């Protein structure tokens, strides 16, 4: 197990992974003629390729001889009409990809940051917010304010988020989201990794959910909000730690999961918290104890599908530290379930086999369906999940390790 853990950690640290709180894009259903699916695939060689795909439900998605070769191990996220690929080549680099008139991917603007980016969000039409951090030690984190038009940094905000030197702990970002004139930044407290102190990534004080709140657009730190009913929000490299529903409520997930990288494992249950529309603190009247409702499952990642439904990647066996980070694992431990945020019920999606978790969770919410990657050591497929019926269909086969990102772009 330790070997596997070490391996996972090695892979984890290969790159500065970008976290992205994805905006649900069910608001405007793209005209199919003008829309184009784009999938990021980690090929069998470990090389990442970004390619256009006509059909997610059948056939094969292959990076052989097609698609745009990526310079390193990248993380991909959606930014409206562009896809941002971020990774560590000669520097921490982020590159925008757009769809050309001919339906081919065009390589756009590139940005270089001094810190590795672990969380980002499209704040509005013009602005992207990204959070950079070091991986250990007491040091400022950076919130980059990025002009989406030319991928240029317009402002840096330095913040420690929540540094506790007396406890040997620092904040590691898991998500950032803008709502109205506030920015919510989720994080977890981990060891600073100082000599003789708490090791980096150890989580001795995680029985609490925490969010740092900043003003927008000025990004002035307003304060921390906390909740003791569950644990730290999000996971390492999560992409959907804070999500907004149709009525403006924010929902966060907490994993309390050893397999998701928390050790010692938090004792509070895994579940969802809410920040109601207009409020700037956790809703004291709302806690969805997912662990209890599901009969012992924990959340690894969750995608808001609309209509009060969360598509949840679950942890079925929480015994192995970091065990959920392995899309091509031989011992898959992740399942899939639909969580109803209103009724606080959980329905397991039996059509999806046990599979490996990812760094974040590749997903696309499109026309009421949620497309995800389901993979293990034998390879991967895209699955089309229907959140209303809690059913899923096996879709296109991935020629390679797994799909790291699933998107739709307009011409």
């Amino acid at each position, binding site marked *: 197990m330790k070997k596997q853990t070490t391996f996972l950690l090695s892979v984890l640290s290969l790159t500065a992974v970008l976290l992205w709180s994805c905006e649900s894009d069910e608001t405007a259903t793209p005209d199919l003629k003008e829309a184009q699916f784009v999938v990021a695939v980690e090929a069998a060689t470990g*090389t990442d390729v970004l390619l256009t795909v006509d059909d997610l439900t059948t056939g094969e998605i292959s990076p052989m001889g097609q698609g*745009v070769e990526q310079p390193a191990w990248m993380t991909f996220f959606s930014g409206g009409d562009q896809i941002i690929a971020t990774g560590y080549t000669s520097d921490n680099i982020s590159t925008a990809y757009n769809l050309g008139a001919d339906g081919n991917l065009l390589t756009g603007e590139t940005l270089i940051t001094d810190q590795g980016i672990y969380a980002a969000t499209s704040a509005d039409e013009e602005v992207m917010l990204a959070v950079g951090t070091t991986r*250990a030690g007491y040091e400022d984190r950076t919130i980059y304010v990025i002009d989406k038009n030319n991928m240029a940094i317009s402002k840096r905000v330095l913040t420690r988020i929540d540094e506790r030197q007396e406890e040997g702990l620092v904040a590691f970002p898991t998500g950032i989201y803008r709502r109205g004139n506030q920015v919510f930044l989720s994080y977890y407290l981990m060891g600073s990794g100082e000599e003789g102190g708490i*090791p980096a990534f*150890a989580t001795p004080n995680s029985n609490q959910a925490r969010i740092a709140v900043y003003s927008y657009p000025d990004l002035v730190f307003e304060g921390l909000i906390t909740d003791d009913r569950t644990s730290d929000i999000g996971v390492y490299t999560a992409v959907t730690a804070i999500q907004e529903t149709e009525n403006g409520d924010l929902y966060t997930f907490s994993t309390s999961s050893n397999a998701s990288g928390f050790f010692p494992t938090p004792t509070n249950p895994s579940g969802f918290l809410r920040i109601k529309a207009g409020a700037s603190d956790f809703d004291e009247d709302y806690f969805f104890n997912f662990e209890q409702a599901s009969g012992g499952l924990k959340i690894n990642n969750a995608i808001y599908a609309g209509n009060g439904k969360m598509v949840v990647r679950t942890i079925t066996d929480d015994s192995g530290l970091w065990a959920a980070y392995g899309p091509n694992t031989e011992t898959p431990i992740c399942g899939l379930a639909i969580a109803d945020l209103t009724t606080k019920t959980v329905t397991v999606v039996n059509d999806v086999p046990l599979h490996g978790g990812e760094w974040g969770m590749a997903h696309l919410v499109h026309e009421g369906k949620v497309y995800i990657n389901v993979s293990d050591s034998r390879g991967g497929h895209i699955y089309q999940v229907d959140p209303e019926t809690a059913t899923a269909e096996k879709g296109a086969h991935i020629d390679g390790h797994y799909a790291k990102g699933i998107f739709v772009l307009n011409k």
Partner: protein
Amino acid sequence: MKFLVKITMTPIKNQSYKLLLLLPLVICETFLPLSTIAQNAHQARVIDEKGIGVSFASILIEPSGEILLSDESGYFTFHKPPKGSLTFTVSHLSFIAFEKNIKASSLENQLLLIKLQPKNIELDQVIIRGKSEATQLREAAYAIEVIEAESFKKSSVDVNQILGRISGVNIRENGGLGSSFNLSLNGLSGNRVRTFINGVPMDYFGNSLTLNNFPANQIEAIEVYKGAVPIHLSSDALGGAVNISLKQQPITFLDASYSVGSFNTHKAAVNGQWHHPKSGLTFRLKSFYNQSDNDYKVNVHLLDYETGKLAEESTNVRRFHDAYQSNMVWAEAGFQNKSFADELMLGFLHSANHNEFQQSPYATGISAFPTGEAFSKTQSKIGNLSYRKKGLLTKRLNVAGYVVYVSGQDQMVDISPHRYDWFGNYEPNVHPTTGEMGRKTNFQLNRENWLGNFNTEYSLGEHHGLAFNYSLNQLSVQGEDEFQPQNNTQFSEPNEVRKDVLGLSYSVKALHDKWKTNVFGKKYLYELNAVEASYDGSSSEEVRIFKQNNGLGIASTYVFGDIQLKASFEKAYRFPEYYELFGDGLNVIPNQNLQAEESQNYNLGFRLNKLGSHSIRAELNTFMRDTKNYIRFEPRMNRSRYINDEAVLAKGLDLTLNYAYDNTLNVNFSGTYQSLKNNDKASALYQDRIPNEPYLFGNLSLIYQLPLDDRNELSFATTHRYVHEFYFQWPSIANQDSKAVIPSQLTHNIELTYVRKKGRLSFSFLIANIMDAEVFDNLNQPKPGRAYSLKSRIYLQKNQ
């Protein structure tokens, strides 16, 4: 084949000093002819009283001063003047010296036969440096190419540059002096190709002494084995071996050189030996000092830190933190040329180097944030004891062995909190918790290494021979890192690797020595006791591996007339090296689960040698290597590591064409095509070319020698080198237009050399990359443009 024959005879007339030139004697496959003037080639043969050819007899021809060696069958070719008379002085340790005056006009178009009379050898007086009959037998069948370093000593090139001219050899350097490099031979690179110094694996010198800083001065010859490797080089080489022979003659000499070049590059070497013939007492010193600022200019798209954008236009800036310095002193004392030993030496070596990083060595392209303080350094203290004796107890038995102890300290330091720009300015204390390339690191590693080799050869008469070899390599590394817990845990306890290799070989020659064959078997024992630490260093696990494997091989050669055929097969193993397993503590992460490589190697070679005033040599080697668990380096910035590829099949061919006219003009072409392909049928990449590996490359060199008078000479040489473009990642992945490519590169060097007093004093002037082409290494990091260097060398030898 190569042989080292020291000809020492009773001084004849006043010519002893001319013999100096002959010291590094290698007749085969030299690139550069010895300096002589002549019009016409004439063939002659040295025979014994039974009419059998005498190999390796030395021939001095007066008045031209031409010095030659007879080949394996006794033949040699000399240059006949149109008129006048010639004096032949022929010597061989087993024969009475022969001297004869012959009128040039009497030499018709027939073979000149020189018959020698045998003598009773007094070993004390006749100094034998030639490889014994058994050794010749053993080596003759291998696919080996020998480079004589003499011609290069005067020039300012280093060993890498010499090797780079051999077909099948490709050297990829990452930058200026002291930067890392990779030698590949027939498509196998890294540690598959072992490098030896006098048969001792070069690994033990640590990073201080490598092929690209080793001065050519001290080298007598370089043997390059393509394919099967003889058992006396008994390491677990997989694709071949390079053995550098240093001077070992029992003489007194002093050899010093100094070169100065662009980028504040200075290289000095002093190499000397004092030998007392009567007592055999010998003191030997080898030393060098190399240093360079490597501050060559590069084109950089400068980063606007505020916006995070790179400038569209590139700016030509000077590298400011890439200096390199290395030094070595190696002193040995002992006896040479005694009844109890041909050589018995005890030595002590100290070497050190210091290397600055300008950016992550495994970044692709140029980093927007250069590093201004990170560095590595190495220090090694080495003790060595070596012994050689030919004809121990009985004339048929040769023994040789060495024991080496190495105590080394390596340090990798990346702790600066400052952020530098490409002008060398910095913003202080902006990243207090990280270094410039990643996690803050101050990694100190202690290496303790025992190496030993024991070799015996026994001749079973004229046509058969047996050899046995045992080699040991035990390495223990332990270290600490005050900043990086993973390193600290990983190396808190000693990590140990031990390799034992036993070899046995049998040699036979038949059909009037035209057919030679060598059969050998090897036993490999491998033991690893290591620690594997987690990323945060909070947990660790012991890794224990013990493996044994058997290897075998056969090498055979047949000669008919001017044509020689060579074929070899070997099943060989290579166990991972410590830096492949444990990483470098900074940019290369450990992978203790690396498997041993296993390879079946096939070589078939053909050689044509036509002597004459227009001499032509053509050589074609084809090879195939079927490798399992191919160990490949995957560059990924500070998370780079070595991995196993399931199966790789390499096929290729090397072509060498050499034309020489009257020893004044020499044109040499070497070209290689190699196809290294994924041979794992289950892989989606089956049949795909291995990434980041050049597959088509070659070089052309032209040398023109102009004798000024009897004693002085001017030579002019140009070298042109081409490497075809190749993909950075697997070729069939993604759209071809989107793929990262290491572009084709063509470079030209020119060199002018002036030699005074028959080689005692020489000066050379080299312009490398004269067209100032933009050249890149395998990660598209820029290499130096045009560079100049001037070298002077003096060589003094005491006549004995």
